[in-house]
């Protein structure tokens, strides 16, 4: 029972031909027992027991950060487990490297296509497994073989074309075809339709069903409920790194799945005391820019405005637009009643906007520089007198933030990269506390942050509000935005689709609006 197309020719290499026990349809092919992954103190996947049956389409659903990506990475050998066991066809396996996973027949098609853009479609399909003769590649033979596979799958794609000339959706199909012709027995799709057109999705679904008919086990990860109900035989729900349960698709419905995805035990969410709401700080009217259209909302002093949505829904893009990082294409920004133009980050900072961006690593911190420099970065002009920086004030400012925020470091000279996620987040926050602002935008402030630091961050929000600031809180973690926000706006596909006051809608309603069932 190999895949559709047995054009693999790596039999010279003994290591890659691991005996494959055929597993009859409906019997366990891959079984996870207590599989767990920890990053430092953070448990990305709590010990999980999930069994995948041979020849089934098994959907996995969950919010952002629920542990789906961690699960894929563990099964494809990209990361190594902390503890637990995996049984493949009844044998305990390590899955320590991607090669091991592939040689056993476990493959994944990722949301972001991980292929070489500058090579042809055929070269990508044969990458790492080229047809050789006398040490030379047989390009024509590969192109012909690849074209035969593509035609047979019903994909109208030229095998000789460069991958970069195809749309993302077409590239996704190439990646799938690549996996299909490699003797794959277990194929994981990670949100494959995120970038596909309706027609491309339909092609992909046909392929998935065909692979299933050939006996391939499919794991299908998606946010889209209608796809799950259309394709899957069974569905597993993950939430906060925990496997909540597995259902047969015929015995469940959207309402039950959404209820399972939602956290009912609202632990450690610190809700601020009700503060008097003050004057409007900022108001956007029909604001549009790259990734978001026609967003109108306002933030008043003393309130938290939450933005909820799936990743890519336009929340972070809106924040970057308001902050002057991205050019705005339409709409107006009114700051404390006056119409303003924000052309760049400095304009935003000078008005009194602070942004703690989504990715600490890529946007928030200079990782290989000291903590002190990171904290002082927005305020060096204030710390300077004439040409030089006032060394005493530089040290004092950094040390004060380290002390106030309880950043766990012996000195301000330690590099930011040496800190844990929670402490790194505090450095980003410290940067803006030392600068000061009227409007604080926190984008995913508690991702990868331990529970204790989370509580500290929530207390800090309350302190900022007391001082008359307003906060925009962007989070993919529903209980967090739900409990903390005075007003909650839901984003979907770049648009603000719904607004609620504190607790005026249920979790189910909010999540349903974000997913767009």
């Amino acid at each position, binding site marked *: 029972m190999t895949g559709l197309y047995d054009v693999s020719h790596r039999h010279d290499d003994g290591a890659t031909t691991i005996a494959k026990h055929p597993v009859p349809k409906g019997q366990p092919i891959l079984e996870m027992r207590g599989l767990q992954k920890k*990053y*430092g*103190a*953070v448990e*990305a996947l709590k010990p999980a027991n999930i069994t995948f049956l041979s020849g089934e389409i098994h959907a996995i659903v969950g919010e*952002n*950060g*629920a*542990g789906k*990506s*961690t699960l894929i990475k563990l099964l494809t050998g990209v990361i190594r487990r902390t503890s637990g066991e995996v049984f493949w066809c009844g044998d305990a396996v390590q899955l320590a490297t991607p090669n091991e996973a592939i040689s056993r027949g476990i493959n994944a098609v990722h949301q972001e296509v991980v292929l070489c853009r500058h090579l042809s479609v055929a070269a990508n399909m044969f990458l790492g497994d080229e047809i050789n003769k006398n040490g030379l590649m047989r390009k024509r033979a590969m192109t012909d073989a690849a074209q035969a596979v593509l035609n047979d799958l019903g994909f109208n794609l030229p095998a000789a074309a460069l991958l970069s000339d195809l749309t993302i959706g077409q590239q996704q199909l190439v990646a799938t075809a690549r996996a299909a012709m490699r003797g794959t027995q277990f194929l994981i799709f990670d949100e494959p339709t995120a970038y596909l057109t309706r027609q491309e999705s339909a092609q992909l679904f046909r392929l998935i069903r065909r692979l299933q008919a050939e006996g391939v086990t499919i794991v299908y990860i998606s946010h889209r409920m209608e796809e799950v109900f259309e394709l899957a035989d069974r569905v597993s729900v993950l939430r906060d*790194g925990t496997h909540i349960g597995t259902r047969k698709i015929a015995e469940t419905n959207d309402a039950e799945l959404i209820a399972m995805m939602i956290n009912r035990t609202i632990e450690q969410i610190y809700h601020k005391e009700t503060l008097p709401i003050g004057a409007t700080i900022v108001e956007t009217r029909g604001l549009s820019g790259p990734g978001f259209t026609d967003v109108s909302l306002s933030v008043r002093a003393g309130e938290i405005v939450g933005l909820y949505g799936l990743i890519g829904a336009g929340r972070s893009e809106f924040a970057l637009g308001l*902050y002057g*990082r991205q050019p705005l294409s339409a709409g107006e920004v009114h700051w404390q009643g006056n119409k303003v133009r924000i052309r760049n*980050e*400095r304009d935003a*900072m000078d008005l009194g906007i602070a*942004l703690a*961006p989504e*990715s*600490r*690593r*890529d*946007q*928030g*911190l*200079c*990782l*290989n*520089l*000291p903590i002190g*420099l990171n904290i*002082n*970065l*927005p305020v*060096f*002009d204030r*710390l*300077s007198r004439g*040409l*030089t*920086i006032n*060394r005493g004030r530089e040290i004092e400012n950094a040390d004060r933030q380290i002390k106030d925020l309880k950043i*766990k*470091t*012996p*000195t301000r*000279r*330690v*590099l930011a*990269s*040496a*800190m*844990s*996620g929670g*402490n790194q987040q505090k450095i980003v926050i410290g*940067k803006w506390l030392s*600068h000061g602002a009227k409007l604080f935008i926190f984008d995913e402030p508690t*991702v*990868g942050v331990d529970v204790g630091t989370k509580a500290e961050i929530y207390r800090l929000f309350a302190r900022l509000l007391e001082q008359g600031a307003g906060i925009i809180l962007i989070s993919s973690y529903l209980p967090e935005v739900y409990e903390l926000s005075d007003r909650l706006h839901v984003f979907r596909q770049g648009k603000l689709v719904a607004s609620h006051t504190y607790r005026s809608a249920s979790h189910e309603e909010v999540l349903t609006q974000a997913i767009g069932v």
Partner: protein
Amino acid sequence: MSVETTTETAPVPKKGMNILFGLTLLGLLLFLWLLLGLSTTSFWTSNNISNLLRQGSMTAILAVGQTFVIITAGIDLSVGAVVGFSSVTVAWLLQQGVPLWPAMGITLLVGVAIGAFHAFGIVRMGLPAFIITLATLTSLRGIGLLVTNGSTISISNEAFTNFSRADFLGIPSLFWMVIAVAIPAYIFLHLSRWGRYLFAVGSNSEAARLSGVNVNRTIYLAYILSSTCAAFVGLLLASRIGIGNATQAEGWELQAIASSVIGGTSLFGAVGSVHGPLLGAFILATINNGANLLNVNAFVQRIITGVLIIVIVYFDQLRRRGSR
């Protein structure tokens, strides 16, 4: 779910390490001097030391300018060509009867313009630093050869040519120029906010931008400083050899980059100092000088330089990895 690995106990007081590395380099330099003093009779003569300081000075100034660029995670391959081009510029201006001081001022301004052009290419046209500076490297040599018609322009201004041979307090004036560049460079890089911005841009330009740093202006600053240092070296070279010649200073960009890297600058950006490249330049000059005294084949000298770069940078890598 992006979760960082926790390595809470990694207190690396960076400053101490920097001083230690600087001292190691200084130790290496002194060790080389001691070794050469023992193995040759001519090393510790005032003539040779003056010569050594003169040789090292020009690379040292280039290396300081280069370091600003490398700290922003860029590279400036054009500095050697800028040196040659500036020697032609000043010689040509003097030949046209422009007085000495304006001629030197205009030459430095040409350096500023070249640096601004590099930054323009990087910031506005989106070209990689490697490409735009490689392009000006070859173009400037071409322009210089075109202006001089492939020959040299000799400089008859005595005041100008005497400068490089002069001493002050027993130290060659060229070495004084290193000090004259190094002190403001030190203040700029280590004591002013613009220096901090160079490091921030080299470490993570997106984070710097979101923290209100004007990234584009910082890049302009770095490349202008590098080219201006190179133009200044062009003046010193013209003074030293008494001619303007577009083919001079061939390969000096590599000497400058090597000095900077030996001095602890990371080609990945965000790591570097002013004293490091200075020491690096004089270590390279000492090796060349010593090899001359010991009658080592000039071709072998190049090999030694190459091996030395690999060894020193490799040890620096080990040190950094150890401190992680």
